[in-house]
């Protein structure tokens, strides 16, 4: 049952990304092009998502357990620290360069187009590289457990 719901919400998530225009890198770039021909449409995608989430998340989290019996697995880190800001900064540069963030890139894999396959392969390599950079011996802080 847990796998069925995870699958169904994955499908729903992908349809939302596609309908909202997030799988169009040109739209992402136009959204980020504040200094040029700015297209703010995608702000309504995140706005719509947070509008729903801001109501349902606190409501869902009032429960002791999730509906299918699992405990809630939530991010534990709360510090606004250097890894957070540096990592988010690096992510933004990659997002602006490519026009893809992880969700739309994975959804777009179905096109089997070489540019997308390349992007996802390098994104996987980057995950391994980032994992190596934040390995426990690389910093005094432990590996952060967070939202993903």
């Amino acid at each position, binding site marked *: 049952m847990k796998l069925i719901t995870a699958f169904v919400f994955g499908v729903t998530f992908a349809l939302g990304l596609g309908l909202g225009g997030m799988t169009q890198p040109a739209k992402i770039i136009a959204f980020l092009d504040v200094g040029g021909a700015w297209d703010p449409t995608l702000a309504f995608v995140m706005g719509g998502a947070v509008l729903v989430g801001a109501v349902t998340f606190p409501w869902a989290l009032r429960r002791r357990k*999730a509906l299918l019996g699992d405990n809630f697995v939530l991010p534990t880190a709360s510090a606004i620290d250097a890894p957070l800001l540096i990592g988010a900064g690096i992510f933004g540069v990659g997002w602006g360069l490519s026009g893809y963030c992880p969700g739309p890139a994975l959804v777009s894999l179905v096109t089997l187009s070489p540019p997308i396959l390349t992007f996802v392969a390098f994104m996987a390599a980057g995950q391994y590289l980032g994992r190596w950079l934040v390995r426990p011996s690389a910093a005094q802080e432990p590996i952060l457990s967070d939202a993903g």
Partner: protein
Amino acid sequence: MPSSSIALALVGGALIGGAASGLLLFNGRIAGISGIFGGLLVPEREETAWRVAFVLGLLAGGGVLLVADPAAFPAHQPRALAVLAAGGLLVGVGTKISNGCTSGHGVCGLSRRSPRSLAATLTFMTTGALTVYVVNHIVQGYLP
């Protein structure tokens, strides 16, 4: 910006928010795509099955889009292959180091009213906009 595209953006956003809410309510998990993807690269025993199911759902949804609305995907990439590769690497590194992307920090984090996720979201929006400014308005002519 026609109002129909705003409406479509809101509907798309609501579906994303609904999916993230559903995953939290039913499965107790955060729909952070970079974390789900990264979690599959280095699998953890208890967390792998639902992540596989969710990613298969993303792919199935992509398949539906491909059939029902092929224009959801670009006919041509606006960026050269080398730029996409560099972007992919930075997206992977950055989301790993900061533990979240547009969905984990942007949608789920803001929905949980996490100041940490707000800081991350403002940061990647800012560097994303700066990057597009530099690429589109300064170095565009030099790119392959």
